[in-house]
């Protein structure tokens, strides 16, 4: 690949504007606003305006940042930014309506690795703050990560096996999108339906939404790892949370509904974003409104039995080639 000034400028545009930092922030905050509004409407409340997470973000930027006396200052201050950067990089790899900024360079394995970094950054930041609430939250977050990683990997295996047929496993996201454009979306393949349901349950646990938000339980451990954060670092964590909603729903859209091709790229992208919104409402707002928070061991048990079981059924069905 020859590197000239145009390529660099193009990649900078991808990283900073679309689908990188600016777009994923704006769309993520909008998704978070829709989530809060829909939850409120389901509870017969009027609910905050859709812009509310954006107001929260800017307000937190204007607040004082307090660093606790017994915190490890460097880790404490750097952790939120590491998480944000890895999420923005992740947004570049996930195809949105067939548009992938860094296509062909990476596959699902990179996505899996990058997905762990934001959760790890919360864990590092929390443990660096030296607060006992954060300590409890960190240990709970670790359990949550272990809980959703297994079903997530099973889902990804099932999808890549379905795409590659009898040949070698293809982990390329581009390959998955092209396959769906030729053969129709994987959501309408009955063998992969359990995997899609499993993925819908993995998304709220990964994002840290009800009823799987054991690590950041506000009412019992005061938002866990975030308890000592204030001001700009807290704003960055809230932004990361919003971008994570966008990234995870976009991943679902790419894996299971990537077959939408109208011939016009912008229309494909708009449809993909609409799918993101619908998935957010189904798997986050709806679950949030109808459930109470599970206990830590219940989350673990649920994900390693029910959700992993669903993903495994799909994997077996795909593997024996029905």
């Amino acid at each position, binding site marked *: 690949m020859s590197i000239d000034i145009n390529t660099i400028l193009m990649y900078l545009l991808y990283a900073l504007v679309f689908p990188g930092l600016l777009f994923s922030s704006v769309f993520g905050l909008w998704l978070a606003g829709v989530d809060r509004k829909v939850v*409120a409407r389901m509870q017969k*409340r009027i609910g905050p305006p859709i812009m509310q997470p954006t107001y929260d973000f800017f307000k937190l930027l204007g607040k004082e940042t*307090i660093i606790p006396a017994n915190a490890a200052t460097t880790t404490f201050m750097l952790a939120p930014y590491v998480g944000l950067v890895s999420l923005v990089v992740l947004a570049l790899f996930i195809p949105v309506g067939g548009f992938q900024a860094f296509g062909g360079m990476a596959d699902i394995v990179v996505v899996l690795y990058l997905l762990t970094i934001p959760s790890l950054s919360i864990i590092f930041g929390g443990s660096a703050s030296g607060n006992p609430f954060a300590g409890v939250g960190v240990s709970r977050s670790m359990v949550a990560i272990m809980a959703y990683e297994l079903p997530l990997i099973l889902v990804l295996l099932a999808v890549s096996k379905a795409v590659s047929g009898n040949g070698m496993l293809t982990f390329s996201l581009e390959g998955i999108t092209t396959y769906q454009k030729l053969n129709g979306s994987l959501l309408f393949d009955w063998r992969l339906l359990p995997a899609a349901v499993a993925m819908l349950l993995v998304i709220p646990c990964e994002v840290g939404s009800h009823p799987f938000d054991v690590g950041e339980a506000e009412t019992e451990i*005061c938002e866990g790892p*975030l*308890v000592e954060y204030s*001001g700009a670092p807290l704003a960055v964590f809230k932004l990361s949370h919003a971008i994570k909603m966008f990234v995870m729903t976009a991943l679902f859209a790419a894996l299971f509904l990537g077959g939408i091709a109208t011939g016009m790229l912008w229309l494909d992208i708009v449809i993909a974003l609409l799918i993101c919104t619908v998935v957010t409402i189904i798997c986050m707002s709806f679950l949030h409104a109808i459930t109470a928070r599970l206990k830590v061991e219940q989350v673990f048990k649920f994900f390693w039995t029910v959700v992993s079981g669903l993903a495994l059924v799909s994997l077996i069905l795909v593997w024996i080639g029905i």
Partner: protein
Amino acid sequence: MFKKIIENSMAKSPWLFHINAGSCNGCDIELVAVLTPKYDAERLGFKLTGSPRHADIVVVTGPVTAQSKERVIRTIAQVPDPKVIVTLGSCPRSCNVFKGSYSVVGPLDNYVDIDVSIAGCAPKPEAIIDGLALAAAVLKEKRRAK
């Protein structure tokens, strides 16, 4: 422009932290009633936080007791600036019926500066929403003055 956005966001996203300084629990229940579907303070951006580090508005209830005095002062000191201190009910301003008790060392304004007082024993939810909206406006003013 950026400064203006932050100022406007301040008034639209005030997060509450609630301190009980020996209250009889009457005002605390009314504060929670404000967040229920009937009154729904979340439509104005109010949110109850668990940590003083996330708070913008500190809501204090109860006549400050000898046991809680030091904790109240320390908790309020942990809230990042700009912050607004709201007293809920008559107790924090006048000690109400608990005045003269051996264990009550209030009123609160002996120890911290109070920005907004909501009167009543206990105040109606409508009065609480009114007072909190005023507190949000004070928060914006404080940010502007900084």
